[in-house]
């Protein structure tokens, strides 16, 4: 049979590109081109007002060799991620397991656990500011009923970051819902077979439940990592990076470099460094996934 070289798009192809055009245009205008512009400005010195001045890799060199707040803010961010992400995963699994038991009232609790996720972030953080207030906050008032003088949750250098992490635990509704969906896709026949063999709850979780929901846990882990490394709003609203830089995360350093210190080029470089770190960590997680993430088609 003769092969004909394709020299033009088929009608179907043309329609395809026509239909994805709105999204493609939006992606280019609002995501791709800004990324390219950000990459360009990362090689310039630019205060946002004058014409950017090309300075090569100087911004990146300064980040890695001179900027003490780069390391400090990165470590604070990794601390936040290192504690909040595992807690996020663990508690979302626990809550999903409980909700999966389909006891009376499960639907109500599902809504209650999901509700904080749909509340406006800033409004939620301001509400928590009132809860954490040292003198009149609800938490310390409750503690005072049992004779404990509550600390300054956000004004104590050692407690500020744990307080922000603890607050984040109330917004695990999305992760919990995704795990719950994964749990509901686990075939009951596996549990029935395990019951027949006399398997206990822990055995069933370790050998059936966890492997079966490992893809959703992998997804949650990746999403939580990306979100955690970009943390900004909570410290910005609640502590402004204090006290004494205890909550001065990378996102805040990036923001201040641009909008307070008027170093837009430097801030762009910080953004790309974060992007590279994120890519590296994501690749590492993908690399480890072959040891603990099981897809049903692979098992079959």
């Amino acid at each position, binding site marked *: 049979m003769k092969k004909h070289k394709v020299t033009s798009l088929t009608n179907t192809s043309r329609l395809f590109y*026509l239909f994805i*055009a709105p999204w493609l245009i939006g992606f280019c205008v609002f995501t791709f081109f800004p990324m390219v512009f950000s990459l360009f400005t990362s090689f310039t010195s630019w205060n946002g007002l004058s014409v950017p001045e090309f300075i090569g890799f100087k911004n990146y060199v300064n980040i890695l060799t001179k900027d003490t707040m780069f390391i400090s803010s990165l470590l604070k961010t990794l601390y936040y991620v290192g504690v909040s992400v595992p807690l996020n995963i663990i508690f979302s699994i626990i809550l999903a397991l409980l909700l999966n038991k389909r006891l009376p009232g499960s639907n109500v609790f599902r809504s209650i656990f999901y509700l904080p996720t749909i509340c406006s972030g800033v409004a939620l953080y301001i509400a928590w500011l009132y809860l954490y207030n040292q*003198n009149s906050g609800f938490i310390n008032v409750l503690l005072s009923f049992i004779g404990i003088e509550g600390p300054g949750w956000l004004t104590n*250098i050692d407690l500020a970051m744990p307080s922000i992490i603890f607050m984040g635990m109330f917004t695990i509704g999305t992760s919990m819902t995704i795990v719950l969906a994964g749990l509901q896709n686990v075939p009951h026949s596996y549990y029935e077979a395990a019951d027949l063999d006399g398997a206990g709850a822990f055995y069933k979780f370790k050998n059936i439940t966890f492997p079966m929901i490992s893809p959703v846990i992998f997804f949650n882990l990746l999403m939580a990592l990306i979100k955690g490394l970009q943390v900004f709003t909570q410290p910005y609203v609640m502590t402004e990076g*204090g006290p004494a830089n205890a909550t001065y995360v990378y996102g805040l350093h990036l923001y*201040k470099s641009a*909008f307070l210190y008027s170093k*837009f080029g430097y801030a762009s470089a910080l953004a790309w460094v974060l992007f590279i770190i994120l890519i590296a960590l994501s690749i590492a997680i993908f690399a480890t996934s072959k040891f603990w993430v099981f897809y049903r088609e692979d098992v079959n």
Partner: protein
Amino acid sequence: MKKLLSVFLSMAMIIGVVAGCKTSNNANSSSKSEKVNLTFGFWGDTKEADMKMALANAYMDKNPNVTIEFEYTDGAGYLTKMQTWFSSNTAPDVFGVPSDTLFQFLGNDKFEDLSSYINNDSMDKEWNMDTVNSVYSSDGKVYAAPFISKTFAIAYNKNLFDKAELAYPTNDWTEDDMLKAAKAITSGTGIDKVHGLRWGVRPTEFYRNLYGDAVYDTTTDKMNAANNKQFKHAVSLFSDTIKQGLAPNETSAAVSTGGFETGKFGMQLCATWDIATFQSMIGNSFNWDVVMLPMNTEFNTRMLTTYRGNGWSMSSSAKEKQVAWDFIKFMSANKESQKTAQSFGIPELVSYANSDEYKNDFAGGSEYNKQVFIDMLNYKTGFRNLGVYAQINDVIKSQYELLLADKTTVDAMATEVQKQGEALFATK
């Protein structure tokens, strides 16, 4: 037919996306009857924002052909907003400018030079040109027209003073008097605690130049922290009062205790823009008044207030410049407008600011010693919150917070501030 429908639907989607983009304003009206659109950028808390919108609405009532679109942001985010406007060339036609950030934009061609407008309309008869020249001008170019000035004073709760059997403070009171009063008033614990003082988030701004010897010199870009007795005293004043429980620690966290209006503070470092809140929230729950910042007997000077001039600028890319200027004049040189704004700052319209009408007008709220804020203009200091100065301010703040946590001493803090500040100035 199906194909035609598909093509039509996809074209409709594309057109919808493109139509969402802003179209250029082709208006080039020169007469009052033609429709004019102005964009108006401003900041403020709820009450101040309401005031500014009221001014704009009043202007639109008088000029029905003018439509003003608001671009509002809260005070904390306004700086970011300005940076974004200028870097993206989207500054509103008329926008507010705080005097502490204007320095960063000097030489910027995005501001319309208002000097010809001021000269043509003889605005030197309406405004204090010393203020215009010193605060809003540089190299002969006028960047903004003055609107109101904002200073700080100490508000005091008369009921709490009576309860502690203290005489009310007078303008010749001293820092020691203030601290004694704070100690006498402070009582209780937890939710029932009454603090003698409230600094709010101001220490990190005030300690930079509380008595006249600033922690850094903005004309020479030199640090002056390590051997600066006044700076160390200022830092100690704020940190000691907080550590002793006389004032709450609100340095890092956003204000969440509720302020002077709750009746739980004997005194508060308050600004002109707090007065509207006090008048509406306090009502008859307690009596209060304001007094000048106290004298420091060691340095033989009164504590200085940070000064904020609020002006109105015109974008150089505004299409209807004359209308924009007319709107600026309406806000800054119209007696009724200045009357509306007087709960938030000292009016810049000289004839009104000097009148008995202004001094006796409390906008229907409780009376207070208005002259105090005016007199504090004689004890003002500027400050800067952008660029390398913002970096140095952050260094000082983090060291101050270490001091509050007893993780450093005042001398060590000053030395570290000197060292890091010098390194930052060297990179400028």
